[in-house]
Structures are given as structure tokens and as C-alpha cells.
């Protein structure tokens, strides 16, 4: 295949950040009509490569050609000009502006004014052509996540993108929305576009792509011409470099109820209300909580953690009713917590690691006496945790924020498990982690379950929920919308319930 037949060819791309080789001699070829899966763990160099293509970074070495023409891409403006569009994992939208305003951003106007009619017409045309429809006058913050992503794709089409990069696009979608995305992508590829689909979810690769480039440690380790012809297992092996077996789930003994919520409601302005939530979790089980984000899961977690006082309802821990809950009280009752956002609510990124590690335990007699910190004990504790959990950190003194996402999560996990919680509340514990780190977290959860603790797992990753949970509860618009034992549950059923359909 000569380069002139190709929509895109990147050859010999190298990029290093300091001593880290993020990309080494990477080749990537894309034809019109391709949906190319770019598969790899976090830190494998996928995002770096795409950022080079989109002009965010400059390659140290290597060449890029688009439709046979060698090109230099110095900025995202250059990339857009050359027909490269990118849908980032974190959307680049203005929530307060309308759909139309987001589409007209950075575009020339007509006679000095914004070209509203032109934009409306284009939007309608794209809607007809690819089934990507949106109300031009809707305010973006009122759109669902799926619709916002659609807007990002439309934005790229507006600029006549020939190459569309999607960075882990399904991470935020319900299964149904993912299906919609896949069919839109197929329509775009049929229309002659080339699509690069970054993911670390194996089944998606087999579902939607027609070619896969696997990256590991900054280099391409495999190119698979027909993804449907290989198994997920072998893809995983290419991605991780070793075989990955899913953690074994033993049947565990269901014990006494440890945490019980009855009739919990909240009324906090600007946050979803919880409406009459009943929930019970027993020792030795993992209760999965599914739901599209913003349906009250976060509020539920905050109520359990003692952050958010419920306006009505009762919280019972081991049969004792809790009045006036507070984070400290819940901690004393051995309710551990892995918050959704490890960078802001979990750890303090600007403090040394040892400070982050003892935040909830600061009043524990091991760590402070008469209001004075026992720094030596704190350091020793941190060192012990670093070795026990295999946290990659130079030492307890290192600034928390310099750790990678996976290591931060390990640190959080170590901190919460250190004093044997009886209930562990984990929100999105593996979001943004690579397969190996996620696997580590999962195994720890299962160990804890076997030891008789109760785990409440709030996740948007259905695969994770299905691997770990004994029961799955679905939240929808602040209510418990249904609950199923893992044996009776299927991705389809839970997906439908997440979208508000009644349980069958």
C-alpha cells in the first residue's frame, strides 16, 4: 500500500518527556472507511500519539502524511485545517452556550456576523445524513452526556473532518448510548471518513473496529487485521504483555446486615434529590450500584459517608440508628470510603504522600498524641503501605500529586483498608485506571468480601459491576429503580433500567 492511497500515515513517530519514552518508532496507517481501534493500557502512549496528530504535542522524530501529502501539525488549528477532528474524553464544550454557539465557535462568520442560518442548515443536513440530530437552540448543560458527545462529533463534521479521533468515547455512555454511537460511527466510515477509536475495552474493539493497533510501553506491539477473528483473551495478552485471568469470585457466606438505609430523601439545591431510597447491604457481599451519572449515586454516597445529611429517612449501622451523621462518626463506625474524585476529595495532591495517607486517621493514637503529630509513626505507616500495596512512589515524602492515577488509587485503597473497614463505599474505583491496576483493585475488593466486609460499589462500568457484584441496584432520577441478583441480571436488562425502563 503506498502512502497516496492512505488517508493518514504516521511513520517512525518518537516522543519523549524527559526520560520517559512516550512513543517509540510508532507507525499508524489509516484508510478511508476504516474504523481503527487503538488499544492499550494507560500510559501505553495512545493519547500521546493522538495528541501529536492533533497538534497538542510536537513529535521529536517521524513524519505525518495526510492523503499522501507530508504535513506539519503545530497546533489544533493546523489539525482542524487539515481535516483532523478529535473528541476528547473530557468534552471541550461550553455548557452555558447553545448547541449552535458551540458549533460556530472559532468559525468565520458571514459579513462580520455569526452565520446562524448557515450553521442551522449544516446541522440539519448532518442530522439527515448520519442520524446525528440535535436541537440547535438547546443549552449544552441541559443535554445528556450522550447528546454532548454527539455534539462533539458534529463539531468535527462541521469542520469537514476526514479523520475523526475518539478518546475512550464509551467511558461515559450507557450501553444503549454506546450502541447509538457505534452505528453513527459506521455511517461516518461508510461515508468515507477514517476513524480512530481509542479504548482499553476489548469487546468494543471486536464490536466496532475493522483493524486494531495495539500499543504497549510507547511502541506498537501488534496490528490485527481482522479483530473478530481473534479472541478477547489474545487481545488482552497483546495489550498487557501477559495473560490476564479475571479474578475468581468464590461463593461467600452472606452475613448480618451491616448498613441499612430506609426512606432516605435529600433536598440539596442544584443537586439531584434522593427520593425515598431503601438499601441494605450485608457482610460478605458486594452491592453494585448502576446508573447514568447524575441520577443520585453521588448523593447516595455522600449520605452514607456522612457528608450529606438526609432530610428524611433512617440510617442504621449494625442495627443502631445513626442520628446526626458526620464523616468522622461514619469513619469511627468502620465505614471506609473511596471517593469518586481521588484528586480533590480523596487525597491532597499538594501535600506529601504521608500526610495524604493518614488524613482520616489523624486522631488515631498511633498517629497523634495530645494534638501533636507523631511524624515518625506516620512515615513508617506510609512506608509499610507503599510496600504492602506495591505503590510506585520513591518514599513517604514525595508530593502526592506526582503519583500516577493507578498509584493514587492504590494509596487510597491502602489507607482505607489499613484499619479493617466493615463497610467499604467505593465510587468509580477503577475509573481511568488501566487493566492491571483495575485488576488489583478488584482483587482487593474480593478479598475484603471474603473477609466478611460489605462493599458498596458505585460504578458506571457495567463490566466491572458484573464481575464483582452479588446484587446490582439501579438508580434512576434519585430513586432505586430496581434491583437484581447477579444470577438473573443481564447487561441489557440493567442498561434498560438505567435508561428509566421498568424492570421486566
Amino acid at each position: 500500500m503506498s502512502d497516496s492511497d492512505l488517508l493518514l500515515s504516521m511513520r517512525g513517530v518518537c516522543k519523549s518527556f524527559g526520560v520517559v519514552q512516550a512513543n517509540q518508532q510508532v507507525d499508524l496507517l489509516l484508510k478511508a472507511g476504516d474504523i481503527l481501534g487503538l488499544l492499550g493500557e494507560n500510559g501505553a502512549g495512545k493519547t500521546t500519539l493522538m495528541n501529536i496528530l492533533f497538534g497538542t504535542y510536537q513529535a521529536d522524530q517521524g513524519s505525518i502524511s495526510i492523503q499522501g501529502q507530508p504535513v506539519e501539525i503545530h497546533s489544533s488549528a493546523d489539525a482542524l485545517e487539515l481535516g483532523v477532528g478529535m473528541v476528547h474524553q473530557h468534552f471541550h464544550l461550553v455548557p452555558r452556550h447553545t448547541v449552535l454557539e458551540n458549533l460556530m465557535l472559532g468559525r468565520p462568520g458571514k459579513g462580520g456576523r455569526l452565520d446562524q442560518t448557515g450553521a442551522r442548515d449544516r446541522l440539519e443536513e448532518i442530522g439527515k445524513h448520519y442520524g446525528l440530530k440535535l436541537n440547535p437552540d438547546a443549552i449544552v448543560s441541559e443535554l445528556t452526556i450522550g447528546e454532548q458527545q454527539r455534539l462533539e462529533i458534529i463539531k468535527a463534521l462541521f469542520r469537514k473532518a476526514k479523520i475523526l479521533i475518539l478518546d475512550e468515547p464509551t467511558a461515559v455512555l450507557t450501553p444503549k448510548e454506546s450502541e447509538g454511537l457505534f452505528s453513527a460511527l459506521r455511517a461516518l466510515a461508510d461515508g468515507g471518513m477514517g476513524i480512530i477509536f481509542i479504548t482499553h475495552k476489548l469487546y468494543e474493539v471486536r464490536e466496532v473496529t475493522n483493524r486494531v493497533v495495539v500499543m504497549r510501553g510507547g511502541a506498537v506491539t501488534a496490528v490485527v487485521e481482522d479483530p473478530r477473528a481473534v479472541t478477547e483473551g489474545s487481545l488482552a495478552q497483546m495489550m498487557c504483555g501477559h495473560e490476564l485471568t479475571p479474578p475468581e469470585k468464590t461463593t461467600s457466606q452472606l452475613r448480618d446486615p451491616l448498613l441499612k438505609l430506609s426512606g432516605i430523601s435529600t433536598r440539596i439545591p442544584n443537586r439531584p434529590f434522593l427520593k425515598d431510597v431503601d438499601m441494605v447491604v450485608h457482610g460478605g457481599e458486594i452491592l453494585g450500584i448502576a446508573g447514568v451519572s447524575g441520577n443520585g449515586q453521588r448523593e447516595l454516597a455522600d449520605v452514607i459517608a456522612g457528608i450529606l445529611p438526609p432530610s428524611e429517612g433512617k440510617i442504621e449501622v449494625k442495627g443502631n440508628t445513626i442520628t446526626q451523621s458526620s464523616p468522622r462518626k461514619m469513619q469511627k463506625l468502620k465505614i471506609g470510603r473511596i471517593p469518586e474524585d481521588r484528586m480533590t476529595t480523596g487525597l491532597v495532591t499538594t501535600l506529601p504522600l504521608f500526610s495524604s495517607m493518614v488524613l482520616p486517621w489523624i486522631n488515631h493514637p498511633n498517629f497523634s498524641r495530645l494534638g501533636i503529630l507523631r511524624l515518625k509513626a506516620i512515615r513508617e505507616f506510609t512506608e509499610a503501605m507503599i510496600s504492602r500495596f506495591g505503590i510506585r512512589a520513591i518514599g513517604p515524602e514525595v508530593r502526592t500529586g506526582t503519583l500516577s492515577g493507578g498509584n493514587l488509587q492504590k494509596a487510597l485503597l491502602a489507607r482505607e483498608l489499613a484499619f479493617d473497614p466493615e463497610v467499604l463505599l467505593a465510587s468509580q474505583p477503577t475509573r481511568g485506571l488501566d487493566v492491571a491496576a483495575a485488576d488489583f483493585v478488584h482483587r482487593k475488593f474480593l478479598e475484603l468480601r471474603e473477609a466478611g466486609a460489605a462493599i458498596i460499589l458505585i460504578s458506571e462500568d457495567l463490566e466491572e459491576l458484573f464481575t464483582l457484584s452479588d446484587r446490582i441496584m439501579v438508580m434512576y432520577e434519585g430513586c432505586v429503580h430496581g434491583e437484581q441478583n447477579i444470577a438473573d441480571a443481564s447487561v441489557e436488562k440493567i442498561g434498560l433500567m438505567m435508561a428509566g425502563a421498568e424492570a421486566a
Partner: protein
Amino acid sequence: MDEILSQIFHIGFFAALIRIATPFILATIGELFAERSGVLNLGIEGIMLFGAMSGFTMAYFSNSLWLGVLAAMLTGMLMAILMGFLTVSLGLSQHVSGIGVTLLSTGFAFFFYRLIFGQPSTPPNIKAFTPVGIPVLMDIPWVGPVLFQQAALTYLALLLVPLSAFLLFQTPWGLNLRTVGENPHAADSAGVNVSAMRYQGLMISGALMGAAGAFLVMVQFNAFTFGVISGRGWVCIALVVFGQWGPWKSAAGALLFALIDALQLRLQASSAINLPYQVFLMMPFVLTIVTMTLVSRNARAPSALLKPFRKEER
């Protein structure tokens, strides 16, 4: 009581109201451009003073009021560029930088005034702008004398309101500017130069703040005094919030403030109410605080206001 009312609400009162409002409209709209791009320009108080000083000096020596206005605007732009260097290029705290720019500009104004004029026993003065009547329109009863017999700068200030609304909401440039103030990452990935937009917003703000200062020394008064701004800049910061970052509402806020100010001037002059004059002087500020507390509860500032933009971070 009737006497007071008739004393207050005659044509001259409303004409004065528009005149008092002019510098507030100019500087508030200026501040609005900076804030819409994501930079709080707290240099406003000092920039207005430095603009007033340099405008006055230029007018004094060149005998041209318009050259004076131009000098004031250029001075304002220059200080705004400094503000941009600190907050946009270096990404420093906007609060600290703004107060620094105010202190520096104030210092410059005092320093250069003393250097040029020394300490004269009677301050030098210039021949101020005189009202220019607009033919035909000025003869409309009531409206004519109030709106169409004003200084040229006032007309420009009034025209600035629809013009800036048009620029902000109807042009690609305005959409880019607003987006930079809301989500600079979105703007950047759409190929908009975030720093350039913020510098532009700031330069417009500086120019208009300078013009507001010039108005005070060339229309309201005809000499430069060190107290010529006396907190007007800070009021404009509040007016932007009051106006919820929109030109029309901000201008309405400026008019409201001017109304109260004009009112207290009349009340001071009237002999009917016997109170220390400081009470009257205080009125507009007290009312600003009250309205601000009421309005700003629902105010929604541009999302990226106060946040420096660094490409790699989010």
C-alpha cells in the same frame, strides 16, 4: 415636600443623570469585556486615574481635547497589557495582579503629575468639552434636552452599549471571547488563540477605563485632582456583577447608580433636609451594597473567570 420634588425632577436633573452615568457606562463596559474573556481587571481604579491624568496632560499641552482622550485610552491600554502580561502570560493571581496594577497606575499618575506640574497653588485647568446638541432631536420636548444635548463622549458611551452587545453576541469574535471566558480548553481545541483573546479583552477594557477617566477631567470637571476617581472604578466592578455580565443590564446599573448619585447631590443642595452632607455622599455606595447583595446571589460569572489557562492542565 412638593418643593423638593419639583426641585429634583426637572429636565436639568435627568440631563445631569446621563452625564454622571457616562464614565460608569464606559468603565463598566470595559470591565465587562475583560471579565467575559476570563480576566478580572482590578486595575480599573488606577487605570482610570492614570488615564485621567495623562488625558488631562495631553489636552493641557496640545489644546486638543480629543488628543487628550486618545492619550487616556492609550495609557489605559498600556496598563491593561501589563495586566495581561501578569495574569495571561505569567498566569499569576488576578486579584493580586489587579491590585498591583491599580497601585502602580496610581503611583504613576501622582508621580508624573507632580513631575510635570509641580505643586501649583491653583491647579491648572483646561477648557472642558461643551454639550453638542444634535439637530432636530434636541428639540424634542423632554427627551431632547436630556439625551441630545450632551458632550460628544456621552453619545459615544451610549452608542457603546448596543455596539458591545452586537460585538459580544452577534459576531464570531464575540463568541470566541465569551468562550475563552467560559471554557478556554474548548476555545483552544477549536483553534482560537486563548491568550490573544484575553489580551484583546483586556486592551478594550483598558482603553474604555482610560476614556472614563478622561471624561471625568474633561467633562465633569476641568482639572485633574488626585481624588478624581474616588472609588468609581470599584463601583464599576460591582456594576458588572449587577448587570450579570451583559452590556444592557450593566448600563442600566450605571444609570441606577447615577440616579442615586444625582439625587444625593440635589438633596445636599436643598435646604429642606438637614443632615450632615456625608450621609448623602454615602447613599449611592450603601445602595450599591444593598442591591449587590440582592442581585449577586443569582449572579453567574463566566466559568473561567480568575482561572489562568495552561494548555496541558485541566
